[in-house]
């Protein structure tokens, strides 16, 4: 006790003196040192970020400003490659395809994953843990392997479809025909990603305070009402997050069509999606400059699309 009183009674330590000097320079120095430490902490990330993201992007942008024909040398072209990209029917067709694909795929994918998450959240048996794992498994399978596997399942000669349909005396549809390829790809992507999105939503659902449900029940809400009026609004930010993931991923659609293209009898040409077009243009047609321009154009479209979306959902989304 006495010691404490002594301490309290003691004169204030001379710390205030430097501050009192007025100019604020020492305080600034202190902050600068703090800033330097901060930079030191993000340096590992910063180095990787600059070397593997910023620098390649800058280089690709630099490349996209030139043209190189087979019969001519490299010359500066300014934004000509971009004008060419946005008037190139192959690029526009691919872009239109991924936009269409997103418009149909994403709602389906969201509905499937949301429904699964809600069901699993409502169950507490061992079976729910098992189904949760099983639904997540497709995401753990590399996209290339998944696409190869679906290629086999879709095969009219080897796949099980022919046997299944043959059982009813029917011919199996050719899944990778020009008419069916849209649905066939949608199926593969939903299979691959729904489990992942389900886990994201499920995690958000698990984070909701159960006392809210109790309160709702006491107020006489049915399970449906709890799901629609409480659970879904409370996981809205998770929904926005996976929507953004899905928009970005789908607009950059590449792996599945690239793999299935080889067995599609021409239904998936090399310019099927903008990313495939960029890949073929660069590595098969040797037009690295134009391919860079295509990639940047696609990037711009994705950026604008995501920005518009986030702008439209900004009230509900918490992470903006």
């Amino acid at each position, binding site marked *: 006790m006495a010691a404490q009183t002594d301490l309290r009674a003691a004169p204030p330590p001379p710390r205030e003196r430097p501050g009192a000097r007025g100019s604020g320079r020492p305080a600034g120095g202190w902050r600068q040192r703090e800033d330097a430490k901060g930079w030191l902490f993000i340096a590992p990330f910063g180095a990787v970020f600059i070397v593997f993201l910023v620098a390649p992007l800058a280089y690709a942008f630099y490349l996209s400003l030139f043209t190189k024909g087979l*019969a001519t040398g490299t010359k500066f072209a300014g934004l000509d490659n971009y004008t060419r990209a946005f008037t190139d029917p192959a690029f526009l067709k691919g872009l239109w395809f991924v936009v269409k694909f997103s418009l149909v795929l994403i709602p389906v994918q969201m509905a499937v994953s949301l429904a699964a998450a809600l069901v699993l959240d409502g169950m507490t048996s061992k079976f729910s843990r098992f189904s949760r794992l099983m639904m997540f498994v497709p995401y753990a399978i590399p996209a290339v392997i998944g696409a190869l596997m679906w290629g086999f399942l879709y095969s009219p000669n080897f796949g099980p479809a022919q046997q299944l349909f043959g059982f009813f005396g029917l011919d199996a549809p050719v899944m990778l025909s020009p008419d069916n390829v849209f649905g066939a790809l949608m199926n593969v992507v939903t299979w691959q990603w729904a489990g992942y999105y389900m886990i994201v939503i499920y995690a958000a659902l698990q984070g909701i305070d159960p006392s809210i449900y109790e309160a709702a029940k006491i107020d006489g809400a049915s399970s449906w009402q709890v799901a629609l009026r409480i659970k879904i609004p409370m996981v809205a930010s998770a929904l926005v997050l996976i929507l953004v993931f899905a928009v970005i991923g789908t607009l950059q659609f590449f792996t599945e069509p690239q793999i299935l293209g080889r067995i599609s*009898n021409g239904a998936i040409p090399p310019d099927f999606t903008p990313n495939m077009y960029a890949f073929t243009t660069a590595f098969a047609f*040797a037009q690295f400059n134009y391919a860079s321009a295509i990639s940047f154009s696609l990037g711009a479209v994705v950026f604008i699309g995501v920005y518009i979306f986030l702008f439209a959902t900004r009230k509900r989304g918490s992470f903006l």
Partner: protein
Amino acid sequence: MNTKVAAAVLSAGALIASLSACGGGGGGGGGGAAGAASDAKAKCSVPVTHADAPQVTVWAWYPNMESVVKNFNESHEDVQVCWTNAGQGADEYNKFQTAVSAGRGAPDVIMLEADTVPVFAIQDALVDLTEYGAEEVKGNFSEGAWKDVSSGDAVYAIPVDGGPMAMMYRKDIFEKYGITPPTTWDEYRAAAEKMKAAGGPLFGDFPSNVPAPTVALMEQAGAKPWEYDASDKTNLKIDLDSEPAKKVLDYWGGLVQDGLVGKQDQFTTEYISGVVNGDYATYISAAWAPGYLTGAGAGAGDDKGNWAVAPLPQWDPANPVAVNWGGSTFAVTSQAENKELAAKVAMELYADDASLEQGAKDQIIFPLNQSVLNADWFINNESEFFDGQTANKDVYIPAANAYKGSTYSPYSTSFYAEFTKQITAMNNGEKTGSQAAEDLHKAMVAYGKQQGFTVQE
């Protein structure tokens, strides 16, 4: 272990040597490239026999490449081959293209299919071999085979194997439906109609993913789709909408629309299983096809001895024309450190009797070297795949010798991609062969102009 140490010492030595060699001008970039090259040397798929001899790096995908490289290394003391399999066809070309664009990372010698040679020659990625004694081996090859690797006066590769085209057919199916091998395309269609009317299988196949044989069939009818000379780089003549080109595409488009032939993509498991199943009565193919089908599992077991081969049907039997599909070559890249040595490898690799004999007997390749084409064992070889038929003497050698050579597109990758699209549209009934030929022509003219060529139509 010892070889590893030796290789490490060697590559260190090579690095020092090349560093000091380019010390005058190159600077850091040159040293880095030499380092990458010696890195590649340390990882030869077949260990070199004479470790102190200079090495030449080679990319190739021949199935028997391992013994080919051994044969070469054992018989050469002044140069050794360091071989890597960098993938087959497009996989290798894409890697090579990247190395060409990057200006480093390419091998010294590369295996290229004849129709891909101009694609890289025009980018100055290949060395004109006339300076390095290509004329000396010219006599080993037919005129057509040599034309395929030449452009004007320049020679960009040394041929190894070719693909003289012929019609393979199922003897058992032909017998069952009482059909004799057609000798003209009119007879081919008539036989196809007869077989369909009798409830038989498809008569052939018109795939979208491999347009090269279709280009060859267009040339057989008299089309000259590409005219181009490496000495005049910016001029290009394209004629894809000529009457013969339209005739061939309309012919095949008609066969597909009438359900006489299939529209299954080839080099797929789907197609092979159809072939094994007997879904196709004929296979319009090249001399390497028996080896390819054997490797894929066809022509064995119950299927054994069902196939026979006949000359390619003709448009005008009075003036038969032989055409070629596929076949490959060795070219020297302009990134080669020692071009003379690399040229020696390109000319002598897979050119020795032991390798050629193995390749030909195992039906891995159809050699273009006259030493084989004129050898009795090759001429009188009774093909097991064709149930003892002397296929070389009857069909393939005459076709190889009658082949006059082609000029391939300087941008054949884009050309084939566009052609695939057009054939797909034809097979889906969206356009006729003539329309496809016109659209293909327009697209290729536009592409050529865009690439800076002065295009003559």
